[in-house]
């Protein structure tokens, strides 16, 4: 039997110019089935996640090498930037620093006041979050999705699900974490949805990425909804993933067609989704009091503090209600 089969295979190979092994068609069938099996197991069963992680780590040095020329270019242009530009930039930064430090002083005062108010109200303490600065290494290479790779990963305590923001607003969410880098899905990707709130009237909604033309949609809202052009969307924070109050997008266009009961609302992302290099990865908000060093020394609030302490003792444990910060 085996010999017969062997002869058959031999006969098949005979007309080839040189020995080629199995026919291209056989190879095509074999490798196609293998690819399909891989796709299924990778997308549905998540068996290959750890393998992808380790392979990605092997790839990391190559990636750094590929990034080196552009990095070098950036560094040299930075080095040769003129004295004038540096001076004016310095002046601008100083001005901004002054303005921000004034704002920060006010904020400190408000935060302390807020903390005590919360104690007075026996409300739960505000959620706090920590953050890691990161830099975008490159834009995702898959033309069908909107992703970027950043240079911070598992080794820097990045976890999947963390929010990624830049100076102007939210740009996305960490979706895959490798040891030295991680993948961020941008808010313009169709697979990303985030709970938002209209800043003007507090209306809650869910924003979806639109994919094709870097915009964000607000679907499933009735045609007569109270949203105007220019309204700002901020994160609502009710998901426990994004800190509340971060800018997400601005409403650009509202179309209410007669054939659907829903309004079509197109928004423009607030963050520079496609043009900044430096980003901040913000961890999921966790329960805890605000403990920044500047906030621990309250200014002229001794009286209120004592009062609030009394109040706290008089109402034991009633207010402690840990909130589950993990959304998934």
């Amino acid at each position: 039997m085996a010999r017969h089969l062997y002869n058959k295979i031999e006969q098949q190979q005979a007309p080839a110019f040189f020995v080629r092994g199995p026919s291209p068609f056989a190879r095509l069938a074999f490798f196609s089935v293998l690819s399909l099996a891989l796709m299924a197991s990778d997308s549905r069963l998540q068996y290959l996640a750890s393998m992808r992680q380790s392979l990605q780590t092997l790839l990391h040095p190559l990636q750094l090498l590929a990034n080196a020329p552009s990095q070098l270019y950036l560094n040299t242009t930075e080095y040769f930037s003129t004295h004038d530009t540096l001076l004016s930039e310095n002046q601008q930064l100083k001005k901004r620093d002054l303005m921000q430090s004034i704002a920060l002083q006010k904020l400190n005062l408000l935060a302390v006041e807020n903390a005590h108010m919360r104690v007075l109200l026996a409300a739960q303490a505000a959620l706090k979050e920590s953050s890691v600065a990161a830099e975008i290494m490159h834009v995702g290479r898959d033309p069908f999705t909107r992703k970027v790779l950043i240079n911070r990963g598992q080794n820097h305590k990045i976890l999947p699900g963390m929010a990624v923001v830049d100076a102007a607003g939210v740009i996305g969410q960490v979706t895959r974490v490798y040891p030295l880098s991680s993948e961020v899905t941008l808010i313009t990707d169709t697979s990303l949805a985030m709970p938002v709130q209209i800043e003007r009237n507090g209306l809650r909604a869910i924003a979806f990425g639109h994919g094709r033309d870097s915009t964000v949609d607000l679907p499933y809202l009735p045609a007569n909804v109270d949203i105007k052009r220019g309204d700002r969307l901020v994160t609502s924070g009710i998901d426990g993933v994004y800190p509340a109050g971060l800018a997400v997008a601005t409403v650009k266009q509202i179309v209410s067609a007669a054939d659907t009961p829903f309004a079509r609302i197109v928004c423009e992302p607030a963050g520079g989704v496609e043009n900044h290099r430096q980003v901040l990865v913000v961890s999921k908000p966790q329960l805890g009091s605000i403990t920044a060093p500047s906030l621990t020394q309250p200014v002229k609030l001794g009286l209120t503090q004592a009062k609030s302490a009394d109040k706290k003792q008089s109402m034991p444990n009633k207010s402690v209600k840990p909130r589950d910060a993990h959304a998934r």
Partner: protein
Amino acid sequence: MPVNKLKTLYFSVLLAFMSLLLPWSQTALLVRPDFMLLVLIFWLIRAPNLCNVGTAWMLGLLVDLAAGMVFGQYALAYTVTAFFAVTYQRRLVLFTGVQQLLYVFSLLLISQVMLLIIKTFAGGQFIGWLYFLPSLSGVMLWLLAVGLGLNTGGRGRAN
């Protein structure tokens, strides 16, 4: 087996992979030709004893990894493309320059269409006709390489 040729093959694949890893963005990303597939097609035409459908599959996996996509998507697209490349490889000797160019263009298109089909099944949406730009730029690159003296086989050349 000529060891020298094998070395060149590995080196060219590495070079293609590195150019894939370059930080492309926005417009550049849109027109970036599929370097890996071009190198693969070249070797499938020139040295079918060194590489085959299996090689295409392996390289596809590598590209999948670099692109951060689900494993097997590029692998399947490359496998199908390589099958067509290998099937018509022997006829290529009779092709003229223009015919070969069309042949390479259709191979690049096959790979992109395959990828589009796979992605659409996975819930992606078509991003417009500009999606096929890499095939065009790929053919340009091929033309450039031939113009610079790369021997890609075909009639009227010392094979």
